[in-house]
């Protein structure tokens, strides 16, 4: 691509995000702190599109202009937060969104369906909507997920999105500084991407990367599949990061071609070797133990031996963090032929209809149900406490989701611990927080 080559020749060295923002802003180079107005390649919303629509129409109020979205092919709306609707109010909001989608010809619309539905952060990658080097905004904080495919992807509020729908650009973006995270070593059995990101958040704190980008590098990242990279970038926001990003490589191309049916050219945007980083963090995962984020902040992270044995009432496997096929595979393997402990309930939420069908075909869902787990429909489920799977007073959940804030699972008088799918599955059998490396797993 012409502009891409021009950037390569420029004397100024850039990080991945600086390169993406320069190109999207039609500039030869930008640096951290510059204020730019990048063009948007993909603008994603979920149920909160109802509020975006309200704010969008508000922009045009009192003007002679007709409300019109800038590019209906670049807007994605995916219902996932409360599917199927839990209340007349939600159902009416979803109806309002459907009407807008039809009126404005929004093309990337995923309704409540078993074929094309699912959680927005799974639906976007698996449909090939996210491309390396693109700018993605979403009215969801976990939009950072899409950095896993080498895109600059960040969360915005509904009014910001309304402005994007009108103009096709994000107004006044300050180019964020980047922290480089270099990951070496080989994960031990039953330790993986979730443990790495929890460890990192614990190390740098919940605001350690506020207004910054986490750019992931190193042999452990090169060997990690896209599903694992999605876990890292998904939770980058829990360290406050504007975005997480893994520069696109052969694995990105493999994922897009094999799992997202992308044809045509795929362009990689890589950082310059002498790009300026605010900080470099080295992590060796070789000795990493399973990590647990304890209540009520995601940075309250402890190695599993410090919390093992604690009683749990509800196990949740799913969400945009850990509801993909490899997550379900490791959990199903541990649970196969075993039983969920008495007085413990287990809920499984595959991240999309596609994953649900794949897991069904591979026998994972049958293994879960025979063990006593309840397999739910794809969606955000209990993760944000708005729909189903709420906790009782004094109850404790152990969950593969991404947040453990007070009240997160619908009850301020309960606690949520965060972990990997392997820890969740091993703990379901015992009813207490359990290290999957121990016992017969």
């Amino acid at each position, binding site marked *: 691509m012409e502009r891409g080559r021009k950037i390569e020749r420029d004397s100024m060295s850039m990080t991945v995000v600086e390169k993406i923002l320069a190109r999207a802003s039609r500039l030869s180079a930008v640096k951290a702190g510059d204020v730019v107005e990048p063009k948007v390649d993909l603008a994603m919303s979920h149920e909160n599109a109802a509020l975006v629509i309200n704010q969008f129409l508000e*922009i045009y109020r009192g003007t002679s202009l007709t409300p019109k979205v800038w590019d209906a092919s670049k807007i994605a709306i995916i219902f996932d937060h409360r599917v199927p609707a839990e*209340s007349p109010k939600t159902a009416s909001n979803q109806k309002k969104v459907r009407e807008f989608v039809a009126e404005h010809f929004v093309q990337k619309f995923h309704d409540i369906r078993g074929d094309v539905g699912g959680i927005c952060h799974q639906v976007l990658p698996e449909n090939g909507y996210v491309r390396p080097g693109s700018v993605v905004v979403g009215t969801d904080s976990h939009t950072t997920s899409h950095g896993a495919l080498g895109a600059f992807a960040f969360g915005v509020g509904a009014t910001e999105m309304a402005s994007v729908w009108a103009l096709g650009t994000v107004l006044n973006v300050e180019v964020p500084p980047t922290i480089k995270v270099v990951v070496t070593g080989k994960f031990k059995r039953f330790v993986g991407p979730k443990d790495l990101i929890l460890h990192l958040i614990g190390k740098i704190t*919940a605001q350690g990367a506020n207004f910054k980008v986490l750019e992931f590098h190193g042999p452990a990242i090169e060997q990690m599949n896209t599903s694992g990279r999605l876990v890292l970038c998904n939770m980058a926001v829990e360290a406050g990061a504007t975005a997480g990003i893994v520069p696109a490589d052969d694995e990105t191309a493999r994922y897009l071609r094999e799992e997202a049916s992308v044809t045509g050219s795929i362009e990689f945007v890589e950082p310059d070797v002498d790009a300026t980083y605010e900080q470099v963090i080295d992590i060796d995962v070789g000795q990493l133990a399973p990590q647990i984020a304890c209540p009520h902040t995601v940075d309250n992270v402890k190695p599993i031996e410090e919390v093992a044995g604690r009683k749990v009432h509800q196990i949740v496997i799913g969400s945009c963090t850990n509801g993909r096929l490899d997550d379900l595979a490791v959990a199903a393997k541990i649970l196969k032929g075993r039983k969920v402990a008495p007085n413990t309930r287990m809920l499984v939420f595959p991240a999309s209809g596609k994953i649900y069908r794949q897991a069904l075909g591979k026998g994972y869902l049958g293994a879960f149900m025979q063990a006593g787990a309840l397999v739910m429909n794809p969606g955000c489920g209990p993760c944000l406490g708005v729909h189903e799977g709420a906790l009782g007073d004094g109850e404790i959940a152990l969950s593969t989701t991404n947040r453990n804030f007070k009240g997160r699972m*619908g009850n301020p008088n309960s606690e949520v611990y965060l972990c990997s799918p392997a820890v969740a599955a091993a703990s379901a059998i015992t009813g207490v927080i359990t290290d999957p490396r121990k016992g017969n797993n």
Partner: protein
Amino acid sequence: MATVVYKVGDDVSTDVIYPGRFMATVLPNETPQFAFADDATFKSKLKANQHVAEKILVAGNNFGCGSSREQAASCLKGYELIIIGKSFARIFLQNAINLGLRVVICPTIEASEGDELELKGDEILNATNGQRFPIEPMPRSRQAVIDAGGLIPYTRQKLEKLAA
């Protein structure tokens, strides 16, 4: 002079400011009823201070971390609160500015409920204890939005200019 009516600590998430179970309520004129819904003292403290002209919420570090839900900003805007925080999470700060909610970044602020604060250009005077605290400027990128009174009028002006 403005009065501190409510004080919170570090890492107060949007789940605490506006619990997820009320997220089906989206309109800015309907969200204030659910602000800090799980803390009954929020409403009682506001009620006790209903005749105070300018009300301040003082927060610690990382106020508004978590979800991008704009209700967390619109529910506070409904009470015309001024939010003074040691630091803010990025999306919350942008949402607040976009909606015209007054936010002030003051990394060293020390104030208790009931204190009278005077907001001067670049510093806050706590008139109750006599201490002064420097104000950090807003992100440069957002000043134009603040000056326009929010992102809706800002975008409207931009669209009208493009159409002209």
